[in-house]
């Protein structure tokens, strides 16, 4: 019961803040709403008993990445209006496409979850040799998901090198 109340309250908050992020006229305000949004998501993780994920969510997204957003938003002068695009209904088209994709995805999720055995969702992975949330996570990452994990880190490394090369005019 309490869990349900928490979940729905948080969901409403998260959605409301999400709307606030894209509707606020001032960029800095929208970044602040984004931070609050992330914090609410972190609380949602805690409700789902994923403390590690919650803490990482705050540390990486709220504490790190959004600070960089703010940094950029404060540095850059956004007074100039964006130039008029040739197709005035471009935004509508893009929005329509995105919405369609989103709805498709949602439908796929619904269909998928109903087509499966309901018990398989709650069934845990094979028994862990370790106890505790973080320990289990670490165990999984370095055994079953080792290759995706390493691929992700290499991808991030490549992205970082690319960003540095783009940012520095001459090397």
């Amino acid at each position: 019961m309490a869990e349900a109340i928490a979940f729905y309250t948080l969901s409403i908050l998260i959605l409301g803040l999400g709307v606030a992020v894209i509707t606020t006229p001032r960029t800095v305000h929208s970044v602040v709403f984004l931070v609050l949004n992330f914090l609410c998501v972190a609380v949602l993780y805690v409700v789902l008993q994923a403390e590690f994920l919650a803490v990482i969510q705050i540390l990486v997204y709220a504490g790190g990445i959004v600070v960089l957003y703010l940094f950029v938003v404060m540095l850059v002068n956004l007074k100039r209006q964006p130039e008029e695009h040739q197709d005035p209904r471009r935004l509508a088209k893009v929005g329509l496409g995105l919405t369609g994709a989103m709805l498709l995805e949602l439908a796929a999720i619904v269909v998928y979850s109903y087509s499966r055995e309901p018990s398989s969702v709650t069934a845990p992975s094979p028994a862990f040799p370790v106890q505790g949330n973080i320990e289990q996570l670490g165990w999984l990452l370095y055994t079953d998901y080792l290759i995706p994990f390493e691929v992700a880190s290499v991808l991030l490394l490549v992205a970082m090198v690319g960003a540095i090369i783009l940012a520095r005019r001459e090397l």
Partner: protein
Amino acid sequence: MATQSAPIFDTDELVINMGPQHPSTHGVLRLVLKLDGERVVDCDTVMGYVHRGIEKLSENRDWTQIILLTDRMDYVAAATNNLGYCETVEKLLGVEVPRRARYIRTILAELQRIGSHCLWLGTHAMDIGAMTVLLYAFRERELVLDLFEEYCGARLTYNSMRIGGLPLDLPSGWDRKAREFCDVMEGKLPEYEELLTNNRIWLERTRGVGVISAGDAIGLGLCGPPLRGSGVYRDVRKDEPYAAYDEFDFEVPLGTRGDTYDRYLIRLEEFRQSIRIIRQALDGLPEGPIMGKVPRLLKPKAGETYHAIESPKGELGYFIVSDGRATNPYRFRVRPPSFCNLQGLKPLIVGHLVADVVCLIGTIDIVLGEVDR
């Protein structure tokens, strides 16, 4: 590889006003800084906030009344201002100053140099964030002020010299106290050095910051420690000796790199040389009168002269024109060392960061009362 692409966003230069109310501009100096990020790309120096028209006032005052106006220029080194003015008028009048008076003048001027450098050291270190040095330096400056108070009764604006000599002889026991002060001061210098000279952060903040070559320094008319920091041997005390400096043995410290650290080392060394001069002067203090033969009514013959002394800030020059008829100078001009050194600020700070600006204002050691007059 350089990609030529138009910037997507407008990047404005940030223009900030540093001063006239700012904790590190050492008075009412205003710098209009154009910043690219934190890097200074342009700088305009605005001054004149304490312009009191001392030159104009002096042209309407008696020759003796001007002495106390000179106090108000470089108010942390009033005695050297007095000295420069009195010597210039004596040069115009052709008055011979007794040897004892010249010795005492030298002692006072060197004490003043120590006092002024104390203030510089404290504020300079404070600007860079080392707050303790300020208190230490002011502790010693207090002793200098005490000595002056005992000599002439004032602690800041001394009015301590007269045309032709001195108003007062040294009080009894003053020379002993001055000697004690020399010992104390010599003992305290290692304290400053311990806090700063080999401090990693201090080195990083001052080494290679505000480098100016010898040629540029001469061209820009820098004087005093900023000029000597670039390795130019120029000290009015040696080149054009005045007071009793030709009778003493002292060295002129020179820098090699011309950066803030060199200027810092030079001023610290000047503490030691000043102590050395004071000791020599106290040892050899001759007996005799303290006033030369000066006419009651001062009316120098028509003519003009320029006379410079080495104030703690640099070459302090007086250019005085007498028309030979009035009891006041026809033209009274001060060549303020702070003004000239301040002119060297812009080439120093362009290209540096905001944090270096305060460091460089400190290193040129200006007093706005003297810049603006």
